[in-house]
């Protein structure tokens, strides 16, 4: 007999691991994302109601598919019978409605091809990811849709993870599904696949960063976006076999996760890389990340995510902060700057230069960074370098600017502490 905890865990696993795949398959077969999503949500709600009573089925994924498929077919039958009755009463109305989105005929082939034991194809999952990250949707929407439809998170969980209002997020998802339907955004593998995979990577990287930076401890519903990002990146890696940049992002995420236990102290305050207890870094996670990175780099197609993973690896394998191979990190950042021309990459390059060649050299590099005036880490970095260069008053001013710009409570506490320390010194 399964306990309530077992059932809860199985329900979570069903939503996170299986619902996206089942949705991907149903959406392709029905050619209607909304109908497929509604059917899957219905089936998940049925599971939450039935499983505590009936027990966990032997094959939860097959159970979910069968229940969702039956829900979808039921609804199509209801709509078809309504349509037949309306057709008799008001043929004009039906014809006008037929110009809208297509409703497959449940008595015809569309419903028949929903075989009870059908398995989702790897391509189904990819198609769904590409749809959620379609360039015709804005970035916030891509993130919300990916977490909701591919990741199987609830709107409450996503809202808590992204620190937005649940109503706002739900509204965003409803609007997106409407645009997908009305503008005819297709569920296909496009010809410009690598361009589109780049968009998916951008979304997953953002989810990862959200999780990494804003790990909220006070939220009622806790969801670890770092783990979600890793799971989704792994799922993408599984379907676009050995794409070096996908593997690069996956390695990057896992190098960071290996250190996550040491990033904050008991009070939830940030602990800088230099001060982290390296004996508590997860060696298995680091080894796994290294294996993934090797698979990526072997293909000799360098890219921004692989370079960031290379940098993360240099940190992860240094036994002490003093052992860090800063010249190699400087070289990797230089390549990253050349490849992306990103101001954040320039900022990090300046930090690496400061570590390799001293605070004065780092400050000189920092002078060449443009466009980060509103970015708190730019000012925090400048403050640290000014402090190390023996200019405490300027350092304190720069900390004050950084404090005024950060939205994260743990970071604000950290910066305030640093400012006080600099002034006291």
């Amino acid at each position, binding site marked *: 007999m399964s306990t309530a905890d077992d059932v809860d865990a199985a329900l979570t696993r069903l939503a996170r691991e299986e619902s996206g795949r089942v949705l991907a398959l149903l959406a392709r077969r029905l050619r209607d994302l909304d109908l497929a999503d509604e059917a899957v949500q219905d089936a998940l709600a049925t599971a939450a109601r039935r499983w505590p009573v009936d027990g966990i089925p032997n094959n939860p994924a097959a159970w979910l598919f069968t229940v969702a498929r039956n829900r979808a077919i039921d609804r199509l039958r209801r709509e078809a019978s309504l349509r037949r009755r309306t057709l008799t009463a008001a043929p004009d109305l039906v014809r006008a409605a037929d110009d809208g989105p297509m409703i497959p005929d449940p008595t015809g082939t569309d419903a028949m091809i929903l075989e009870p034991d059908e398995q989702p194809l790897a391509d189904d999952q990819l198609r769904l990811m590409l749809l959620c990250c*379609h360039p015709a949707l804005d970035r916030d929407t891509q993130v919300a849709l990916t977490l909701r439809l591919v990741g199987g998170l609830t709107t409450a969980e996503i809202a808590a993870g992204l620190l937005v209002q649940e109503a706002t997020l739900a509204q965003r998802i409803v609007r997106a599904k409407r645009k997908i339907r009305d*503008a*005819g*955004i297709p569920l*296909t593998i496009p010809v410009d696949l690598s361009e589109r995979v780049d968009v998916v990577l951008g979304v997953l990287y953002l989810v990862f960063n959200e999780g990494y930076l804003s790990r909220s401890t006070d939220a009622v519903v806790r969801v670890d976006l770092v783990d979600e990002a890793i799971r989704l990146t792994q799922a993408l890696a599984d379907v676009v076999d050995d794409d070096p940049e996908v593997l690069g992002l996956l390695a990057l995420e896992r190098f960071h996760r290996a250190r996550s236990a040491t990033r904050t102290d008991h009070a939830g305050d940030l602990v800088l890389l230099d001060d982290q207890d390296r004996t508590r870094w997860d060696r298995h996670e680091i080894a796994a990340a290294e294996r993934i990175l090797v698979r990526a780099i072997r293909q000799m197609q360098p890219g921004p995510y692989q370079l960031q993973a290379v940098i993360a690896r240099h940190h992860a394998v240094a036994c002490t902060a003093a052992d860090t191979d800063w010249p190699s990190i400087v070289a990797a950042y230089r390549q990253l700057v050349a490849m992306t021309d990103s101001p954040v990459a320039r900022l990090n390059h300046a930090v690496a230069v400061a570590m390799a060649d001293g605070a004065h050299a780092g400050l000189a590099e920092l002078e060449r960074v443009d466009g980060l005036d509103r970015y708190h880490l730019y000012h925090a970095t400048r403050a640290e370098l000014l402090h190390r260069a023996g200019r405490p008053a300027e350092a304190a001013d720069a900390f004050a600017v950084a404090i005024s710009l950060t939205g994260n409570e743990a970071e604000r506490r950290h910066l305030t502490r640093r400012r006080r320390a600099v002034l006291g010194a």
Partner: protein
Amino acid sequence: MEYMILLYSDESFEMPAPDTPEFGEFMGEWMAYNQKLIDGGHWVSGASLQPTTTATTVTKSFGAAPSITDGPYAETKEQLGGYYLVSAADLDEAIALAKEVPIPVGSFEVRPVAFRPDAA
């Protein structure tokens, strides 16, 4: 599905003068693009518009008499200069068609058609 591709570009951009080789090349690109839409079964209709200096805007407001003003509806850096109405399988195909419009600098808004009374 049908999509309207609205072509916005800077109309002060000089067109090549007629009777120059550049003009022939310029028109050739448009003819080739139009032919491509026709051959691919995408063509529904299309037109280029005279510049916004010829535009007149009629504005209606509940109850009040319509007002007539000289000029386009919105004064923007890029103006509506023409449109295509195309038939495409989905948004991706419509976007691919919009990408090939032979205007080097501009923005092309792709909008699905909701209803067209004279549609076949």
